[in-house]
């Protein structure tokens, strides 16, 4: 069903809509992106009091954290609260992937998916908001028309403008978001919100489909020249020459599912004499050591489950193509096991299961 945006005031409309979701008891708490500090900062907030919904902005082209990681924290352990979560496709995909590793409990979650045409780095967005002629509405209209200024690489090629497998969808692609927004949910929920359940209008479905196809082509194109960038050790080392092994990419990865990463243990803290011995053997060592080992280990541990959210690249202080590398190597493994990450299916990530008869001869 469509909900009208009164006087073009989208934030007001969204505030009211999300308040009603809390007030009508659809959920007991709500994870919702809101504007903070009036300085162009947007982040997830965990709302209990409906009156504290004052800057609901889930459609803005900016993403601070992957909500999958936040919900892992919010649902691990005793949780008796029904939490609603307003999320983009990459966050929902991370959520489902994490649930397969038992790092998210989906039981008490109500997932509200929102349309997304791409996000930019929070600092870039704050910079734009500070500019005189900038309006988010205009910027989003540009995105619908295919413009991609400032948009992160991962988002440029993301084929999920509208999330799949959500309990409710909130959409603007294919409508005039200054006039109306589309809500898709079950009849029961619609009733409780005094809304009438309707299928999305044909125009909308068509537009989403067109964007999905365009972005799929962009992704395929990006992947097609990865062999040149990462296909030999020398080219890979060149691409990652400026890696300072800060582990930021790992810290921000929503999929890296270990409670304690092997790189944060002392297994790879070596004795001083070891370094000297290795330096002696090769004549010279790059420091810090084990950078390639770090990336290769992470590739082995989780690339098959990479949902392509691009948080790794956003986290990198030196702008390295982490997202590209993980998509490239991950796809190869996914093909072997015919596995598609980020979906609400029974399919298990390759590392969690096996067949007795497979992969032979060795």
């Amino acid at each position, binding site marked *: 069903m469509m909900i009208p945006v009164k006087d073009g005031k989208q934030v007001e409309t969204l505030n009211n809509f999300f308040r009603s979701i809390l007030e009508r008891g659809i959920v007991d708490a709500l994870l919702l992106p809101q504007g903070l500090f009036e300085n162009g900062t947007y982040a997830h907030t965990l709302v209990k009091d409906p009156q504290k919904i004052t800057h609901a902005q889930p459609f803005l082209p900016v993403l601070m954290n992957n909500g999958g990681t936040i919900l892992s924290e919010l649902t691990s352990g005793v949780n008796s609260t029904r939490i609603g979560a307003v999320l983009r496709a990459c966050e929902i995909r991370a959520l489902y992937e994490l649930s397969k590793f038992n790092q998210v409990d989906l039981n008490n979650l109500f997932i509200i998916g929102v349309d997304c045409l791409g996000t930019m780095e929070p600092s870039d967005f704050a910079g734009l908001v500070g500019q005189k002629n900038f309006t988010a509405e205009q910027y989003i209209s540009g995105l619908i028309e295919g413009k991609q200024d400032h948009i992160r690489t991962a988002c440029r090629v993301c084929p999920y403008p509208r999330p799949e497998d959500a309990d409710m969808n909130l959409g603007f692609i294919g409508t005039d978001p200054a006039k109306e927004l589309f809500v898709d949910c079950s009849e029961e929920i619609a009733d409780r919100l005094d809304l009438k359940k309707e299928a999305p209008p044909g125009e909308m479905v068509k537009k989403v489909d067109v964007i999905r196809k365009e972005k799929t082509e962009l992704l395929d194109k990006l992947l097609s020249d990865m062999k040149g960038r990462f296909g030999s*050790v020398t080219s890979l080392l060149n691409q990652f020459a400026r890696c300072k092994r800060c582990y930021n990419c790992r810290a921000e990865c929503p999929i890296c599912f270990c409670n304690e990463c092997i790189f944060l243990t002392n297994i790879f803290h070596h004795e001083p004499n070891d370094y000297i011995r290795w330096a002696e053997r*090769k004549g010279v060592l790059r420091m810090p050591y*084990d950078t390639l080992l770090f990336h290769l280990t992470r590739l082995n541990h989780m690339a098959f489950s990479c949902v392509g959210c691009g948080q790794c690249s956003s986290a990198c202080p030196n702008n390295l193509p982490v997202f590209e590398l993980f998509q490239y190597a991950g796809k190869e*493994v996914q093909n*072997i096991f015919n596995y598609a990450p980020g979906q609400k299916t029974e399919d298990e990530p390759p590392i969690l299961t096996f067949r007795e008869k497979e992969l032979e001869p060795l």
Partner: protein
Amino acid sequence: MEFEPKIIAFVCNWCTYAAADLAGTSRIQYPPNIRLIRLMCSSAVDPIYIMKSILNGADGVLIGGCHPGDCHYQNGNYKARRRVTILKSILTSIGVPEERIWLRWISASEGKKFADTVTDMVGRLREMGPSPFKSMWEI
């Protein structure tokens, strides 16, 4: 001087390690290019140890486990098979020949198979030449 490949082997206590022992006590000859590391099961080998060996200059890594159906922990070898498959795929993606990694099922009674495997592997690695990682310092 002919190139002598160095192989690091991660071997299961219940099968391949015993096979190596048997090869020794039966005085079956095999090349001395291999260093054994004994583990309780082939599934105890995280890919990180295989990669660490290769990046630090080993020319090849052998992982030895119990035959399918014979793992003492029921399915450790099936998991190892998946991990090694993933590892090989990733190494191939970045242009490292997967042939430097061998996973083989060698039971406790197969001393001869152990010796033959080592001989074959040394032969193949000799053809391939030394691992380029030996001299790479920028990793």
